[in-house]
């Protein structure tokens, strides 16, 4: 087999499952170790480097890192990565002096950002310190975009939003609130801006066209309703509420309803539980509050009598399943469910009524702008899209990741360079050995189970809309949870010429990830692994031929718990434990970039 190219920055990056899964590639194990040391401010800044909003994301991130966590493969539950992020934010000391700032003299370039959501704020965060003057236009009276309007304050307190957005405005970004952009042409025409970033989100809730839809004012569209709640325009709701749809917006709608006076809230799902779009933990939180989730009900009609909403009619469905796939469905019966209000939470979509279609910005058949997935450039030079506005509704961490890429593109654009000649990713390794058998990280496997985050009691949490339900870990509980992290970024780095094939590493590996075997065709080598490969998507490491016997060292990264025993037992230091820093270029990194030929095309 071909030896693994460990120079490829993605090889070691993939081993750090959480970092690889995070769209912004936050160095999770690094900040978890900093939390373990009580260096909360440092942990916060490691987070902020890539995800910009640790306090916000530590509460409401979609956390793609957690299902990816290696711990799920050796034990049942992932490290509470997201909750630990919040610990870094909650317990940090004042770090404002350590935040980047605009330089005394700007570079004379002006960038407009449309919408003050996470994508635009990230663009400003990256560009202001480089000397750009960035103006953010926001239609509402407060910044934050969907983070402010669609995420209820019992999950994300306004103070946290204000503080982290404040860091960016304090840097020197200009925020123009209550300034909707009604015409992109009008913004572009005077030539005031060298680049425009569209981060206006996916602001339109999907409609459900059924009989009776227009005959009552008690049928609401989820994200618009949440927005009205957020700004205090809506302060009450009927006693019986039906939520249509079972995504994360539906979860926010049902829990908000309970806080506005609803006594009975039902979430009506068309399909069985395995098909729910809501995150597992959001479902758990809703069910803890006695929200009833009703499966296999397809909405059929709104029932209105004398101008009053009486309830809804549904078809109760039955599905035939083949594993996790639906093969057939049939209607069992029609049911009537009474209610006072209905909230539609079946998705949202982009809408660009304010972008003239003759500006050179192409739209596709779905009326979405054509955006390059890497550079985030539209078909008009100098106009970029990011976040939900670019590719439809996703989540905050995706918007942040795209904000970084867009800022990099804007910087390249403003300096007259090619958008596709992007600085390369890189990885830096440094040994963690500090003595014969000492490592500068805690390498012992800790078998304890995931710590639970305390919640405000069910009696207290409904008192006000903005009682934050999750209390977050305290320092003591955080100190326990951090021990569960497997330090996947402390890489097992093998130096084949040093190996004397004593088998010490093979014998000591607790999870049998190492094999020394004869070289051969991939299929036969894989058949000889000490433990059968369970997750082929996990990387393999293949060494060069070993000196004494010509065999090869194979490591299946899948279940490595990074205990470092292979390196401790290695008599020749052929194995070493080395911390990997994955470098994902951001705007301004160009200066640090290596010579031209080493650049890779994006």
């Amino acid at each position, binding site marked *: 087999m071909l030896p693994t190219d460990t120079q490829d920055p993605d090889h070691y990056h993939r081993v750090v499952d959480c970092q690889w899964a995070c769209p912004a590639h936050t160095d999770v194990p690094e900040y978890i170790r900093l939390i373990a040391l009580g260096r909360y401010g440092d942990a916060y800044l490691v987070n902020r480097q890539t995800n910009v909003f640790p306090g916000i994301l530590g509460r409401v991130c979609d956390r793609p890192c957690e299902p990816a966590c290696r711990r799920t493969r050796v034990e049942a539950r992932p490290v509470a990565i997201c909750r630990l992020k919040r610990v870094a934010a909650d317990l940090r000391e004042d770090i404002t002096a350590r935040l980047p700032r605009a330089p005394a003299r700007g570079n004379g370039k002006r960038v407009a950002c449309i919408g003050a959501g996470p994508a635009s704020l990230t663009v400003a965060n990256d560009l202001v310190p480089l000397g750009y003057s960035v103006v953010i236009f926001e239609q509402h009276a407060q910044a934050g975009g969907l983070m402010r309007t669609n995420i209820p304050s019992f999950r994300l307190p306004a103070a946290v939003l204000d503080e982290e957005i404040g860091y960016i405005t304090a840097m020197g970004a200009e925020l123009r609130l209550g300034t909707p952009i009604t015409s992109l042409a009008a913004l572009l025409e005077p030539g005031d801006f060298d680049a425009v970033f569209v981060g206006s989100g996916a602001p339109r809730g999907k409609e459900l066209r059924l009989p009776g839809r227009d005959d009552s004012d008690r049928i609401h569209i989820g994200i618009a309703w949440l927005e009205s709640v957020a700004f205090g325009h809506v302060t009450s709701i009927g006693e019986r509420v039906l939520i249509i749809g079972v995504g994360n917006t539906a979860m926010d709608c049902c829990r908000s309803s309970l806080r506005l006076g609803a006594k009975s809230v039902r979430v009506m799902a068309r399909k069985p539980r395995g098909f729910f779009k809501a995150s597992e933990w959001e479902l758990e939180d809703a069910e803890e509050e006695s929200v009833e989730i009703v499966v296999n009900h397809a909405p059929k009609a709104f029932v209105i009598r004398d101008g009053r909403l009486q309830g809804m009619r549904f078809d109760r469905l039955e599905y035939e399943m083949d594993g996790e796939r639906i093969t057939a469905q049939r209607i069992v019966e029609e049911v009537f469910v009474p209610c006072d209000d209905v909230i539609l939470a079946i998705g949202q979509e982009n809408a660009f009524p304010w972008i003239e279609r003759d500006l050179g910005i192409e739209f596709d058949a779905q009326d979405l702008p054509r955006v390059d997935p890497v550079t985030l450039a539209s078909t008009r030079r100098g106009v970029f899209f990011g976040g939900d506005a670019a590719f439809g509704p996703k989540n905050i961490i995706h918007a942040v990741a795209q904000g970084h890429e867009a800022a990099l593109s804007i910087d390249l654009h403003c300096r007259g360079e090619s958008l596709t000649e992007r600085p390369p990713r890189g990885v830096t390794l440094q040994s963690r050995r500090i003595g014969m058998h000492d490592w500068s990280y805690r390498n012992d496997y800790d078998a304890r189970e995931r710590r639970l985050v305390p919640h405000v009691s069910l009696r207290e949490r409904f008192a006000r809309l903005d009682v934050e339900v999750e209390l977050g870990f305290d320092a003591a509980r955080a100190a326990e949870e951090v021990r569960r992290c497997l330090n996947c970024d402390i890489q097992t780095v093998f130096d084949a010429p040093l190996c004397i094939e004593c088998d010490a590493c093979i014998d000591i590996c607790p999870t049998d990830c190492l094999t020394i075997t004869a070289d051969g065709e991939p299929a036969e080598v894989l058949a000889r692994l000490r433990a059968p490969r369970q997750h082929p998507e996990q990387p393999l490491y293949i060494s060069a031929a070993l000196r004494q016997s010509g065999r090869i060292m194979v490591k299946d990264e899948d279940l490595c718990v990074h205990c470092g025993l292979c390196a*401790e037992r290695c*008599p020749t230091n052929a194995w070493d434990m080395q911390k990997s820093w994955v470098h994902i270029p951001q705007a301004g990194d160009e200066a640090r970039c290596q010579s031209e030929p080493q650049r890779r095309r994006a």
Partner: protein
Amino acid sequence: MSFMPKPKVANPGLPVNALGLNRRDYEGGMSTLCAGCGHDSVTAAIVQACYELALPPQSVAKFSGIGCSSKTTAYFVAGAHGFNAVHGRMPSIAAGAHAANRHLHCIGVSGDGDSLSIGLGQFAHAIRRNPDMLYLIENNGVYGLTKGQFSASADVGSRSRKGDVNEQRPIDPVLLALALGAPFVARSFSGDKEQLVPLIKAGLACGGFALIDVLSPCVTFNDHEGSTKSYAYVREHREAPVAVDYVAPRREIEVRYAPGEVLPVTLHDGSNVLLRKLDPDYDPTDRARAAAFVQERALANEYVTGLIYMEPERRDFHTRHRTAEEALNALPFERLCPGAGRLAEIQRGFR
């Protein structure tokens, strides 16, 4: 060595044996041997063999003397019985335990110092008594625990780490065992578990004294150029005329071999040892020629490894002495101690 025990976390895909135990269940304590010591690989091979044989841990008895090698017994089958004897005196303790309970799977682990120097007499007499035990010598040619002096198994011409050359003739435990009548004699290499694990299984099943001389390099004092017991040297200077496959009782011998290529030997417990001839002229049942072959190859600086000699019919200790089938601790008191009357009767027989 490492300063941290092997974490209890295991590969969730680890298979289990007939007793429902996985390989990790046959491990022992944390090794304090040097990192890269061959003995740790021997430990791993014993763990693997005991797991594959599905031995109940409490049916295993581990014996050792003094030396790096003798620490090994602490590192496998934590649930087994064990006795760490005085230097060189392990064979008599093991023989005694075996005399008291023939159903124990006795594993003695010793070294070239423990068995070939201070304990040579005990070692030789244990072979003569032929108890049913597996006797492993972890042979590295040096006294590692006292900083690397030549041991009795150091080859002529082998250099110490400081550069001294050994001039004394070595004692080869394989030749000794052949001369003294051991029914199972093998040599292996700690760096070759594919060879070592089946040998350990066959040795445990053979029903008599099974010697496996394992070349187990001392990574600290004897793994340099000029050493004849380094990883590199052993890897380059070994040949195996016979390979062994162990087939558990009631298992079909599945693999088909060309006639003459394989010699199946059925053991007393119904298991089979398949002797695969790698050298068609070699006969592992001819004691005299086996000894000659080992000596010839030694002159050519080659270690003969694999199974060297096997004679399953040789009468073991219990058969010869017509002892009770049950372990002494399982015999009813009246049979174990028939009383003063019976003693007087016996004594009268001698008058």
